[in-house]
């Protein structure tokens, strides 16, 4: 039975219980396209956040903001340039191989954006779902029963009708459910969901999101939910983190961040989202230009060139994260007490 998505406790930034966070990333950095030389693309710029047990963190950003790269760094598909990933409080070496990597993969699984691309077209569902069981030593004899129960868990029932099908025989929603089942197979603690609904039709998105929420509740999973859709992030997440040009600009409880965004970029994102209920009047938004080239990022705040509130100080290095209360922080000097005092009354952030 469904219930309201419980708004998360506001202090997840440092969870109250002594239990370690499922995932912590500290100053994670990824630079592409260089071999030790300068001038690469800084895809992820010193990003830090934590996901508590049983929590969904929504990671919001536009394409090129580095949100998928973060997921792939955590999943060890890419090697971080710098920074640390901790799983259950234990640091994970940035270079992993062999048995250690396989052990790590049992704990961290991924759901991909495009279910048409993330399933090998040649393998039947049975193969795709039994492999994680076998790799991680969970298989008990013939895996068909285990695969069947996985299929039932993701709502593909009766399982017998799906187990021998190949991807081309399934609809988009069914494929994505197989993708979710594959991620669940190894009973991980953390699931990285990289835009799991954006390639799906509108009418089936909600059901896939509901499935993920149910699974999270039933199995106590932690989840990184990556999306470019603020409304989807609000629906799915306990907390939301906003990325811009590889930099984390705002993080806090989902409803807080989306209802009362504290960073000018989040405000821009929100004003750009379609709002049919806003009286059908297209809202004028104020923003210049487009996302900067990640090769030549401005030295200060990455959003400064487009920001309606830009001031000279914005160019003096990357702003720090300012606490705006309630576990909500934003990387904008408008929240600096000194500047606030100076600009009093001018900007209503």
């Amino acid at each position, binding site marked *: 039975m*469904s219930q309201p998505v419980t708004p998360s406790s506001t202090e997840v930034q440092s969870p109250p219980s002594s239990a370690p966070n499922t995932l912590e990333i500290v100053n994670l950095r990824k630079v592409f396209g260089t071999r030790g030389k300068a001038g690469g693309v800084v895809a992820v710029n010193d990003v830090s956040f934590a996901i508590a047990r049983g929590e969904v963190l929504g990671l919001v950003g536009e394409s090129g903001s580095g949100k998928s790269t973060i997921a792939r760094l955590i999943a060890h598909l890419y090697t971080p340039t710098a920074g640390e990933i901790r799983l259950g409080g234990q640091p994970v070496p940035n270079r992993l191989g062999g048995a250690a990597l396989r052990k790590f993969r049992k704990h961290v699984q991924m759901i991909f954006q495009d279910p048409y691309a993330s399933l090998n077209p040649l393998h039947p569902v049975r193969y795709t779902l039994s492999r994680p069981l076998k790799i991680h030593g969970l298989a008990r004899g013939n895996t068909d029963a285990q695969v069947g129960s996985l299929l039932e868990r993701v709502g593909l029932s009766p399982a017998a009708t799906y187990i021998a099908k190949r991807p081309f025989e399934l609809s988009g929603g069914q494929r994505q459910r197989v993708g979710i089942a594959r991620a669940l197979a190894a009973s991980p603690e953390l699931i990285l969901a990289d835009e799991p609904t954006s390639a799906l039709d509108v009418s089936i998105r*909600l059901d896939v999101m509901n499935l993920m929420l149910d699974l999270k509740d039933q199995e106590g999973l932690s989840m990184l939910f990556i999306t470019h859709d603020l409304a989807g992030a609000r629906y799915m997440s306990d907390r939301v983190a906003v990325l811009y040009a590889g930099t984390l600009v705002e993080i806090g409880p989902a409803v807080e961040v989306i209802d009362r965004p504290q960073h000018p970029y989040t405000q821009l994102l929100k004003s750009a989202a379609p709002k049919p209920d806003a009286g059908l009047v297209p809202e004028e938004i104020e923003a210049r230009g*487009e996302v900067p080239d990640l090769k030549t990022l401005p030295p200060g705040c990455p959003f400064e060139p487009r920001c309606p509130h830009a001031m000279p100080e914005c160019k003096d290095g990357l702003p720090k994260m300012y606490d705006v209360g309630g576990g909500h922080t934003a990387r904008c000097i408008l929240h600096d007490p000194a500047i606030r005092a100076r600009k009093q009354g001018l900007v209503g952030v």
Partner: protein
Amino acid sequence: MTAVIPAATVPRRAWKNTSLGRFFRNPRSVAGAGLLLLFVLLALLAPVLTPYNPNSLQFDAFMGFSAQHPLGTTALGQDIFSQFVYGARLTLLVGSAAGLIATFLSVTFGLAAAYFGGRVDEAINTLINVFLVLPGLPLIIVAAAFIRGGGVWPVILVIGLTGWAFGARVLRSQALALRERDFIAAATVAGEGPIRIIFVEMLPNMAGLIAANFFGAALYAVLSEAGLSFIGVGDVSLVTWGTMLYWAQAKGALLQGAWWWVALPGLSIALLGTSFALLNFAVDEISNPKLGGGRLKMPRRTVSAAGPAPVAGDALLAINDLNVGYVTPTGTVRAVRDVTLEVQPGELLGLAGESGCGKSTLAFAATRLLDPPGAVLGGSVRLAEHDLLALSPEELRQVRWKEFSIVFQASMSVLNPVLKIREQVYDAMQAHGVTDKAKLDARARELFDLVGIQTSYLDAYPHQLSGGMKQRVVIAIALALEPKLIVMDEPTTALDVVVQRQILQEINDVRRRLGISIIFITHDLSLLVEMSDRVAIMYAGEVVEQAPAHQLYAHPAHPYTQQLMNSFPPMTGPRTRRSGIPGKPPPLSAEIVGCPFFERCTKRMPGVCDVKPLQTFPVAEHQTAACFLYDPTVSPALKGNAIRESQINAGQSNAGQISAGQISAGQISAGEVSREPARNAKLN
């Protein structure tokens, strides 16, 4: 209970769509395989076909045709026919063995480069480039000259070792593309090791290309062997078609008039080569859908009985009973079914629906841009005074862009990468009679100002622009001749929300200023409701509801629209669970009886909705819906029942969570019940 009758039995269709099925339907692969089989049989049955040893010198020289020697004898007194038959063996051996070696090397190098990447890739790629440009035959000649004699294997080795580079290049680029596919990342995350990823995940997906590559390499090997043997490099004591040519030439066969001694082995090499080439070509065609697609019989359009385009009011565009299909080997997929739509001057009509509902096909068919296998099966389209479907190609060319223009979904790739933006802005105008350079330049600048791009970008190439700028360029081109209508097919879907919003604002400004009509197609209903004057909702090829945007938003009539509206999580208010629409649309290859939404509908009326032919009913002023809930001939009791049932279901699943200010399925249906009597009264 189902309203869907499959058009063809499933197993047969499945077989026809497999690669093997396509292999046997492709005339080229059948011809190639047949020819190859013939040669293989020839080689295998050699002892049966001829009693003589091909090397025995027991006969007289240059004997003519006879029953005993159907092709006469050589200058050395060998039987030419038995040489030819036995020659097939070694020739085939050289072709297949050297082909295999080369293919093995291509696959190994191509896959290793793609999988390991980095330095390994760079090193292998350099090696490939070197072997590609090194002239092969001279290299083989020089190499073979040093390893004289020694039978057929040195020749095979040399050919195999020098002939792999082209295949490696092709396979490397495909493996690189494959490596970027998510299913490889998914297998990695699942914990698969490199061996399994290469051999179980990647390799089977490259089977077609590898097969094509093998046939290509075999062709190269057969020709190389012939060339080598002909100049006497290699072992000329062996009997191959190549060495036959060598001896024929050395012994002056042509001067002796024994032309067949030369003609037969050469022709056989050519035919064997052709069979390899045909197989290479066909396998390539089968595994690369871009090249595939042969001839299909196109159905003729049946002009509707009502005659072309009845002039209805002052509509700018009138689409009448339009039927569009895709002709496939397994039957016709009816993608657009009996669609009737109108667009008024200056109106922005939003066309919404999910993927595969036919919205893009409708737009392409109405503008006559549909490529085979798509075809208009019936109906008419009238734009202003033009009957669009009846125009001759030249008339159509003249009407295009002047009367209506199109902005495509994939604007990232609609600009020609090798021409400057300026030329692509100009040529649309030049094609319609604007030739004065100064005028063209002035207009181009004006257009760029209009859509907010610096005019300096006129002299850029498309790759120098960001996605948002390209889309603005395309919109600028669409406005160039101030058409009456612009069809926009998901014009901002690929763009980020902020850029999308900026462009939508510009579109809105421009169309209000110039009074242009727009058909705006998207799957994003909330965006559409915000943008449009009027909205049409499509489902499974049919327009199921039409209404002014605010009316559709406030009072959606069709259950599909209602459920679709509820599928968007809200940006405000308390967070409650909502549900999507379970199930999926019916396949468009099927004949659909009754309502296509029947199976997913919460308010369906069995015995009505899945039986009666679908019709469109008026719901309110300017609002119509293809739903039997609005059919005055269906009893109100039945409708009430269906609505009550859906409320009970909704109540169960929402368990009293509906809070004030929430729009939910339950409330919409409540509103509907209250409107029901009024509408019935009006209809009666």
